[in-house]
């Protein structure tokens, strides 16, 4: 079917897509894309295309899930059947269930849930196209959607992965690198609090390699964080600029 490349990093030290080991894929972020949702965001990270929408805080359904002292955060990570090489069944897979849980847990520390007892905040993430690192891009999108919804937050959450490929620690693995590489370490960060809210690994690493990978992933996170802030501000900056121009005429 597909030819497996022999080397993931060539003699010049470049990866299959031409990147250097510490290079991020191109990232594009847009906020407020789904008019019906209370908050929303669209992320393109490499070939990943991910949409996140937030509804809430709103009434809890079913009622017995309601908490007396804070809001409940629910998260659904789901991949579209056409998002991957071989069509995926629309029914939630075990992987999607696990990712829904870890993504929820990566966002909870950032939201002031205790301000809104007896309500529910729903976060929906749909992966329209996948190419490795979807859970990280999903977290980046979901945090933007939460900020866009106007729910108070301690910090944004941003995520990026690092890993090991051909004996080299690399940043932001794409799908082939993830499948054929030695390890993949996704990390989510609240940058201002320097708090890691998601950390997983599959593969094999020595302790030293693990430390390098985490630090590289955190660097990647901070780069994407700058873009997140810009994306949130862009909506409002463009309106001021328009008005400045009108005034100058």
């Amino acid at each position, binding site marked *: 079917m597909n030819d497996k490349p022999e080397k993931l990093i060539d003699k010049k030290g470049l990866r299959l897509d031409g990147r250097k080991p510490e290079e991020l894929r191109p990232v594009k972020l847009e906020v407020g894309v789904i008019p019906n949702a209370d908050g929303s965001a669209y992320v393109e990270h490499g070939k990943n295309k991910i949409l996140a929408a937030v509804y809430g805080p709103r009434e809890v359904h079913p009622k017995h899930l309601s908490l007396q002292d804070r809001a409940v955060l629910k998260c659904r990570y789901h991949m579209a059947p056409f998002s991957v090489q071989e069509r995926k069944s629309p029914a939630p897979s075990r992987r999607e269930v696990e990712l829904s849980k870890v993504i929820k847990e990566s966002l909870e520390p*950032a939201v002031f849930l205790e301000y809104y007892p007896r309500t529910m905040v729903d976060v929906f993430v749909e992966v329209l196209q996948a190419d490795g690192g979807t859970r990280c891009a999903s977290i980046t999108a979901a945090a933007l959607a939460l900020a866009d919804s106007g729910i*108070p*937050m*301690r910090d*944004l959450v941003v995520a990026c992965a690092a890993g090991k490929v051909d004996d080299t620690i690399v940043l932001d693995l794409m799908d082939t690198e993830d499948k054929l590489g030695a390890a993949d370490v996704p990390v989510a960060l609240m940058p201002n609090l320097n708090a890691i809210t998601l950390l997983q690994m599959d593969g094999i690493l020595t302790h030293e390699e693990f430390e390098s990978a985490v630090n590289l992933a955190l660097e990647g996170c901070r780069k994407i964080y700058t873009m997140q802030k810009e994306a949130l501000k862009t909506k409002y900056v463009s*309106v*001021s600029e328009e008005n400045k121009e*009108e005034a100058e005429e």
Partner: protein
Amino acid sequence: MPILLEKRQLVTPGDLIAEGEYIAGENTFSEKGKIYAARVGIVEYETKKIDVVALKAFYVPRTGDIIIGTIIEVGFNGWTVDINSPYIALLRASDVLSRPFKPQKDDLPQVLDAGDLVVAKVVSYDRTHDPQLTVAEPGLGKITRGQIIKITPTKIPRVIGRKGSMISMIKQETGCNIILGLNGVVLITGKTLEDEELATRAILKIEQESHTSGLTDRVTQMLKEEKAKEEENKK
């Protein structure tokens, strides 16, 4: 000990605004002597208190607020009301009827039915109970005509303007009566549909551009231009 950002600077959640002896105001929080933004918005401060004027927020009820709501359901002894908030409000039958509710005699849907609009006041709300409303005061009660628009509640003060200057100007230019619910719901009642639509556009423009300066002048100009166009078309 510094305030690190200028007034009217745009911030995102988690941005550090100030360090030291300051008070964390609206849409901010403090941790270990530092004040951070909790929402996307614009930094404002008066001496010691630091606020972030949020660009988008939803309405959380406060006792005494005048709001505009939609009846959702006629219940056992009252109504549940959508007040554009995460919390659903309750309006007791006894409050509306101004006397104890008699289930055999009183037909609640006749008084207020699902889909009706009311102007009401929040009489109580806390973390453990849903907000309770009253309509037993002058100026409150069922709405029978007009247009309803929803804007983000944090912009209502901007629509009011300094000492009511903005809202008075809109009322004057459009000839409409306007009730501003603190929950972001606005009722516009005018003589003609065009007048109501004009007022709607003015208010939506304020919502979009609330963070910019010179807004009052621009809105006034827009209204005057539109009125002039209307006069032209009538001829």
